């Protein structure tokens, strides 16, 4: 056994103190990334990928239909008008689908929004691929202006057979304050 000092009691104590430090680091260095990895890989908690999916040309599975439902919610204090152009679409797995979300900034001031996606059932998240999404970036809008924000997605053919409906929900957050410097620079 490693002897650090003359006192075995102190030796034990130092080793345990090291364990305590490791456990503290464990929270930041292991638990947080592990949680994110589990979410990404397993699609747990309905988190979809934050980056674009590179679409592989694939067979469209015409034998199967999946309903994709769209929900748009404003978070606390977000005043934009934010809604999907359609409430739901019926798609085939493997088919690339385009749709739009409307956003209007009704205030007189320039603002920046961040859309956060969430999918239910959560195990469908791993099979819901966004090739293009306004949620990948922060969305700035001048005062009293509107935008059509595109979404392109593909439902993976490997989607479990018992999932017939996927709900994609975006929550829109006001991140103007967090990006204040960038706005001033524009």
């Amino acid at each position, binding site marked *: 056994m490693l002897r650090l000092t003359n006192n075995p009691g102190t030796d034990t*104590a130092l080793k345990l103190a090291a364990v305590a430090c490791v456990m*503290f680091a464990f929270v930041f260095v292991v*638990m947080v990334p592990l*949680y994110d990895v589990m979410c990404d890989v397993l699609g747990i*908690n309905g988190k979809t990928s934050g980056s674009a999916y590179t679409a592989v040309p694939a067979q469209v599975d015409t034998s199967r239909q999946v309903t994709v439902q769209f929900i748009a919610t404003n978070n606390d204090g977000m005043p934009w008008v934010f809604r999907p152009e359609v409430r739901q679409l019926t798609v085939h797995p493997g088919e690339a689908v385009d749709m739009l979300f409307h956003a209007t900034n009704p205030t007189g001031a320039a603002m920046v929004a961040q859309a956060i996606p969430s999918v239910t059932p959560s195990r469908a998240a791993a099979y819901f691929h966004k090739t293009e999404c306004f949620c990948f970036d922060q969305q700035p809008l001048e005062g009293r202006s509107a935008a059509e924000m595109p979404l392109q997605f593909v439902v993976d053919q490997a989607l479990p057979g018992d999932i017939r409906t996927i709900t994609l929900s975006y*929550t829109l957050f006001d991140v103007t304050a967090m990006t204040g410097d960038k706005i001033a620079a524009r």
Partner: protein
Amino acid sequence: MGAHHHGPARGITRWLFTTNHKDIGTMYLWFSFAMFILGGAFAMIIRAELFQPGMQLVEPGFFNQMTTLHGLVMVFGAIMPSFVGLANWLIPMMIGAPDMALPRMNNWSFWILPPGFLMLASTLFMEGGAPAFGWTFYAPLSTTYAAPSVTFFIFAIHVLGMSSIMGSINIIATVMNMRAPGMSYMKLPLFVWTWLITAFLLVAVMPVLAGAVTMMLMDIHFGTSFFSAAGGGDPVLFQHIFWFFGHPEVYIIILPAFGVVSQIIPAFSRKPLFGYASMVYATASIAFLSFIVWAHHMYTVGMPVAGELYFMYATMLIAVPTGVKVFNWISTMWRGALSFETPMLFSIGFLVLFTIGGFTGLMLSIAPADFQYHDTYFVVAHFHYVMVAGAVFSMTAAVYFWLPKWTGRMYNETMGKVHFWVSFVGFNITFFPQHFVGLAGMPRRVPDYALQFADFNMMSSIGAFVYGASQILFLYNVIATIVAGEKVSDEKVWDGAEGLEWTVPTPAPYHTFEVPPKVDTAAAHG
């Protein structure tokens, strides 16, 4: 080690600078009792407001401060330090060691507690009030939506956590390195075993709590988004991290209580503890399992079904080693020669009521049923059965059991029995009806309720006042004993008691086992 001792110093400096495990144990015990009274006062305010429907005494925001502080003070200020105090007093004597492995760190472990709690209590007087987000402080209520005092709350948690970590390190270092010759691990009294295992749990998970509150601090003050969806974070991540600490925490609370009861029941059954080895393995199994079941506190959060099923199965499993322990205690009593002095009464009370709490715990582990129990008073009833009738009754039993050894004076047995019966009846009147209102639909952490819950709430409040009053009787008994109790000088105060601490003079000298005892290799373990 110096061989020259003058006995304890005089005056306040004795207590400020002591490195003596008995002195430090005493300070922990008195401090924890003061915290028990403080946390109890918060509970009295809660139950007074809940005596009738309607808001009579406090505002809803202040009520939430009371429930939050009640939980924090009881868990971190009353229960945990009280068992650390017991550990300090007893572990060195039980293993034949002269003191703890790191006596100066021992002093710091205690002395950072009063400032930590002063800081926590002072938040009541800050702008926006004390923390009001529950002792489980979920984000974002505890981050984005918290009052400014949250920063002091975080600092206080760090201080209390440091105290626990240092205390646990000391306990492990002591048990691993300072056992008297012949005191092998499988001869250790069960109280020492349960504390050894508890100390490992503490070293492992207290830093996780520190990590969680540090992440909160960063989210609040340094622009990170660990728990905020806006920045790509997740409020549910907080819950996973918190309960990764939180579930082992409840076993940290109860394992030393199991150890105490494992000392007391054999003493008053005049029979060795049944299944010593099983008890050790069961304790270790409970500790191991405690790491892998945390999300049963989160069944309604929207976990995927596979995760929910796994946590349900793993949680249900904990009933097995816990059941083994209950059967072993009862088998210890079986065909013993029982007597029912106060420590035994509290231990039997523990056995009955903790088991009931264990049954409601099993009910709660069943995930689909938990959709109806979660965040209702059914859960409040469950954890008060295991923490009050479990840990607190065990702690009370310990004080009655060892006080004569510590002080050389016997407590008043009649008063002790009255304390037990009033506590037992008061406790059950307080918490049994809470099962009913929980099943009937009353959520927890509410300052007011619908009319159909009124009668049981009134009953519960009355029970709470009765239970609270009986603790004053206890305090009186303890002080009267110390000051003027009938003197006891037998080393073995209780004829059935076993263990090295019962071989030293009564009262225990300031320094014991400066020369290690010879442990009889054939002796039964206590």
